């Protein structure tokens, strides 16, 4: 468990290097989520997106990227919403330990 000051006021990691799967569980639990296999698949995808494009995705590219990598069943916003309610791109990025989107879309 990371101490509370490892996170900023919005619950994002202050130091991206702190991220581990356990930290992901900790962030998710603070958001009221228990991570399932479906969540982990998207978390891994988000981390790959960040490695490939050096940025956290907005909703539309995340959906397209999912369709590309996981097939059209999962490349749908309704599927992502069911896993990460509210704002899937933002919430998913937070749990996956990606930088807080600075463009505030």
């Amino acid at each position, binding site marked *: 468990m990371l101490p509370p000051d490892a996170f*900023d*006021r*919005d619950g994002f990691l202050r130091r991206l290097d702190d991220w581990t799967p356990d930290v992901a569980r900790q962030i998710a639990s603070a958001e009221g989520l228990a991570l399932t296999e479906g969540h982990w698949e998207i978390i891994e995808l988000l981390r790959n997106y960040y490695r490939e494009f050096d940025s956290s995705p907005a909703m539309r590219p995340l959906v397209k990227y999912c369709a590309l990598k996981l097939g059209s069943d999962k490349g749908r916003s309704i599927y992502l919403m069911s896993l990460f309610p509210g704002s899937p791109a933002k919430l998913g990025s937070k749990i996956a330990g990606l930088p807080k989107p*600075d*463009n*505030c*879309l």
Partner: protein
Amino acid sequence: MIYSLLVMSSPASGHCAMTAARFAQALVARGHSIKRVFFLDAGCCNGSATAVFPQDEDQRLEPWVTLAEQNGVELVLCIASALKHGMLDDSEARRYDRPAATVHPAFIVSGLGQLVEAVACADRLVTFGG
């Protein structure tokens, strides 16, 4: 006509930012409406409540504040640029644990979506850079 202005010029270098403010005043005087003035990159420093300019030079903040307060012109600083330039309103100062707000209350700190919308709504977009 409906205008939107994009200001990328710094208030501290050159006088293009002041030309932009005078342009906005002239628009109002000719009866045009200004949907929004969006400040991007170094332009976001135009919203500084704390910058000090020499007494015998133009005051760089005042014309913008007048536009906002007397003519109802919406002034928006790009949040990504603003943060990098130390331009924080009250809520951003709290969010990032900084000692004070530096943005004048006549300005709003918000995202690039505000520029996208301002461009989409405008008959004319006029950009000031350099």
